[in-house]
């Protein structure tokens, strides 16, 4: 068995892991980042395409939280993690949430002011911008519809940098923080899956991993590290901790933003190359409306949720785009590592209030799309119905049941919460796992509850904060 030694081992290279590695390497610490997935050039594949799904998504995107109804979800599995596959929307954690979490979970040095300081630093480093040019038709749809209805709406910023011609480049971790960490001396090891943490007397004393070589050959690896920071995401961080025998408040209370969708047909062509950045915020914080990836394959799948007769609308796919309504769910789920299995069992239980909110989201999404000029709406309800006017939308209230509603999510959190309240949390206020001197979590698992917005900004700000605390104390 090969061995490797490092001062700090970071497991996972997404928003949490990349920021952690950069902060520690910049401070002169010896850092090694191990990533289960491959290193894929950020420009290698069209965003949201089949090739990207096969190469960069965990399980090719075919994952789900079991429940009634089941909820499909996706995660990145490549160097850079989910920042390589998401739409790059950037939104700071709302102040009212950081205040509420600080009180409920008793989190030190948390709240609007401290987090704003770290967010400002991250934003300056990574590049956060709005569109420099007039929005394309798919972006303008929600603004037009919401304005007509008198609903609040706004363009969200993205982690994008734009050139003088207005061409945007998403600032993924493989383009930004990870190269910087490497320049400061960090080592990134792709295709390396950590299987277990070895513990003794409240310390992690070794890490078992398996590295896959380019020829497909596998090599078992034992890594020695003074400190271990787990940043494998809200599903695989708790799974790894559980496999290693750490279970106190680990894997409980999974939170997410369940999402319903509508494929909307317009009497004119809609662009399909990007994800719209405009959002309807009238129903914040519990309900957000926005745009989804809309390649032809996505449109075909969205149409088929409402009807099996998709040949005619699919022939007109260039006039169709997919939009979503996402809720901040009251329900919760679990991540359970099962003996002998690589992937954990994931469950999620929606409350009746969640189901009602999802129906409300679908109706409001339909209203705004019709106001924007859509002529036909295909909801993510098995059997639809497809509707063409406001009167038709009313049918969805009764149709949006547990048995008919097809749900997805891309935001997962809260499986190893942070804070001094040990009864509710799996780590202290800065991500150190309870009862362990050298084991930390620093990713979306730490968020005590659903963020209501894209969590990347919150994950990066909290990771930056925790890394600074680590440097000050270790």
């Amino acid at each position: 068995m090969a061995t490797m030694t490092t001062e700090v081992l970071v497991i996972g290279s997404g928003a949490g892991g990349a920021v952690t590695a950069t902060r520690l390497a910049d401070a002169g610490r010896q850092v090694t980042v191990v990533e289960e997935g491959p290193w894929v050039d950020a420009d290698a594949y069209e965003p949201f395409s089949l090739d990207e799904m096969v190469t960069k998504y965990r399980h090719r995107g075919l994952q789900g939280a079991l429940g009634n109804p089941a909820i499909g979800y996706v995660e990145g599995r490549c160097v850079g993690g989910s920042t390589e596959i998401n739409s790059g929307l950037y939104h700071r954690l709302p102040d009212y949430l950081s205040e509420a979490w600080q009180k409920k979970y008793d989190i030190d040095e948390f709240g609007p002011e401290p987090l704003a300081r770290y967010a400002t630093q991250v934003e300056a480093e990574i590049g956060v911008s709005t569109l420099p040019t007039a929005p394309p038709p798919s972006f303008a749809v929600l603004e037009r519809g919401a304005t007509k209805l008198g609903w609040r709406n706004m363009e969200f910023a993205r982690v994008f940098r734009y050139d003088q011609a207005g061409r945007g480049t998403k600032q993924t971790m493989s383009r930004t923080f990870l190269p910087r960490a490497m320049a400061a001396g960090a080592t990134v090891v792709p295709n390396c899956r950590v299987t277990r943490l070895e513990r003794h007397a409240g310390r992690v004393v070794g890490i078992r991993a398996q590295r896959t070589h380019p020829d497909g050959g596998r090599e078992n690896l034992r890594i020695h590290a003074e400190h271990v920071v787990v940043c494998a995401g809200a599903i695989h961080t708790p799974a790894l901790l559980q496999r290693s025998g750490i279970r106190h408040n680990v894997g409980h209370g999974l939170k997410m933003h369940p999402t319903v969708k509508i494929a909307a047909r317009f009497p004119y062509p809609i662009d399909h190359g990007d994800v719209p950045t405009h959002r309807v915020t009238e129903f914040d914080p519990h309900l957000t409306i926005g745009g989804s990836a809309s390649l032809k394959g996505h449109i075909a799948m969205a149409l088929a949720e409402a009807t099996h007769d998709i040949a005619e609308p699919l022939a007109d796919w260039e006039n169709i785009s997919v939009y979503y309504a996402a809720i901040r769910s009251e329900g919760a789920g679990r991540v359970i590592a099962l003996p002998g299995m690589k992937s954990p069992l994931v469950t999620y239980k929606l409350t009746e209030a969640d189901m009602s909110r999802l129906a409300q989201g679908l109706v409001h999404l339909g209203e705004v799309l019709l106001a924007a000029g859509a002529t036909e709406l295909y909801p993510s309800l098995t059997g639809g119905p497809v509707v063409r006017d406001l009167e038709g939308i009313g049918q969805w209230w009764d149709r949006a049941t547990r048995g008919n509603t097809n749900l997805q999510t891309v935001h997962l959190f809260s499986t190893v919460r942070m804070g001094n309240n040990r009864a509710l949390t799996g780590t202290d206020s800065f991500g150190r796992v309870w009862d362990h001197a050298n084991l930390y979590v620093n990713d979306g698992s730490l968020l005590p509850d659903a963020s209501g917005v894209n969590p990347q900004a919150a994950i990066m700000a909290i990771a930056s904060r925790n890394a600074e605390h680590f440097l000050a104390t270790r």
Partner: protein
Amino acid sequence: MLWFEREVVQALGSSTDQDTRSAVEAFVDGSLRAMPEVPRLGVLAETVLFGTYVKALAATGRLNGPEDLRVLLDRWESSRIGPVRLYVHVFRSLVLFGENELGSGVMGDAA
């Protein structure tokens, strides 16, 4: 991919081009192999159950060919039983995504 899973992919496909159908079948096969263990075991169990049922229907002359299977799958997708509905939903989504994203020749077939 088991026998009945291949039958489902063929029944749900709309392309008339054999190369495209083969490519979609390979894509679905790869996706099923990539699934997490627990959901994949669930799909396998359903495949065995549904495949046996369909074979029994065929043996008694109540199901003749892919078109009949397609009608049956449409009915299952509206089932009140979640795992039954989800089984068809997963296969239909994979077939549609594959047909529409794998090759340019598929566009005309699907339309």
